[in-house]
């Protein structure tokens, strides 16, 4: 079950348990490979929606740290999800700092792409999200892409839950306006 190299067998039973908030039958914390299968799609979607330059590479960094520190984690699946997204936000900030500190240079040698670029999902929605304020966009993504409850979002963005709810409401109204949907 914990074999990281062949994760497929765990998918069938792992996701329902985490989706319902229940722990494992043996009481053991999930392995890093299991967490990857569970959360990698939402982390990758979050990174893309945040406009990360290389979301797949950052995804690898995030779960490398998860694999390194998963044995020290204590908490329920909601806390585990919040912990993974806290790491994701920190890696995103680090990446932005690295890119701003490193001048972009044009190289004559273009490296061969190791993976095929993933097709953007719903570019219209991504454009609308990009027009929100950073705080509004962050709240919307953490609430609906990361699927975190209001309390965890408030803890991550260091705001009160009431402020998070108000920000979420304004962000959704703005998105409906931008996407041409009726309010």
């Amino acid at each position, binding site marked *: 079950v914990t074999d*990281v*190299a062949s*994760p497929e067998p765990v998918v069938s039973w792992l996701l329902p348990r985490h989706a319902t908030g229940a722990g494992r039958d043996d009481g053991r914390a999930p*392995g*890093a*490979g299991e967490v*990857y299968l569970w959360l*990698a*799609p*939402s982390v*990758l*979607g*979050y990174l*893309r*929606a945040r406009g990360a330059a290389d979301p*797949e590479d950052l*995804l*690898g960094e995030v*779960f*490398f740290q*998860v*694999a*390194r*520190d*998963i*044995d020290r984690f204590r908490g329920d699946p909601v806390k585990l999800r919040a912990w993974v997204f806290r790491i994701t936000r920190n890696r995103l900030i680090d990446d932005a700092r690295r890119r701003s500190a490193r001048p972009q240079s044009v190289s004559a040698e273009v490296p061969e792409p*190791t*993976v*095929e670029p*993933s097709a953007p*999902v*719903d570019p219209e*929605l*991504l454009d609308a999200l990009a027009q929100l304020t950073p705080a509004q966009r962050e709240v*919307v*993504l953490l609430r*609906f*892409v*990361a*699927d975190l409850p209001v309390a965890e979002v408030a803890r991550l963005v260091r705001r009160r839950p009431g402020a998070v709810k108000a920000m979420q409401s304004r962000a*959704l109204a703005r*998105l*409906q306006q931008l*996407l041409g*949907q*009726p*309010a």
Partner: protein
Amino acid sequence: MKPSDDLIDRIRTLGRAEVPASVADSHLTAMAGARSRARRPWLAAVAALAAVVLGTGVASATWQGRSPSVPITPASEAEEIVEEEPVVDSPDDGMDLSDGDLGDEGAESDEGDEGEEGEAPEPSDLDPFPDDPCRGAPPFAGQPPVGATDEERSANRSAEAEAFAAVREACPDDEAGEGAGPPPGVPQGPPAGVPQGPPAGVPQGPPEGTPQGPPAGVPQGPPAGVPQGPPAGAGAGGR
């Protein structure tokens, strides 16, 4: 179903991104390596502890003014050296630690000071004046008596002792005085400047600073300041 619900479902779709298979494989492989390393925290702990201990040993040797350029000394050896240094009164105090002899020498010195049995002390350790027959220990001290039998050895040792005593008797008093006189603390007579009289505690008359003259009620007492030297046990100021 509210319009916002459709929007929320649309946003949630972003979180169901498909991770390319090749990307997932590379990530999972890297995670397996990170996990195997993270499961050996004792190795990192041992390395950190060794670094701290070795650093402490080198720092202690450096603090004592020793050369820190020696190959890294194990902490146990360094602590032994530091602890034994104060009792080693050796002219080789500045010697290099690299040969590791100093700690052993210090240990032997401690054993000699404590009277370790089984080793005959060197004559130089006992007699500070080996060339002066009038001072110090006899030359045969610490030496086994010469002779084939017990009687011969006893006779030879007696002859050596008599010869030494004769030499000592011929020594000048001032040189032999340190060891020839009575032991310190034995009274030899009153020191110069101390008036003779009865033992201390026997009343002698008016103490120093008392107005001269006989004490009140004693009309014929001796003049003050004149030593009387009454016999022991006589009343002071009496006839």
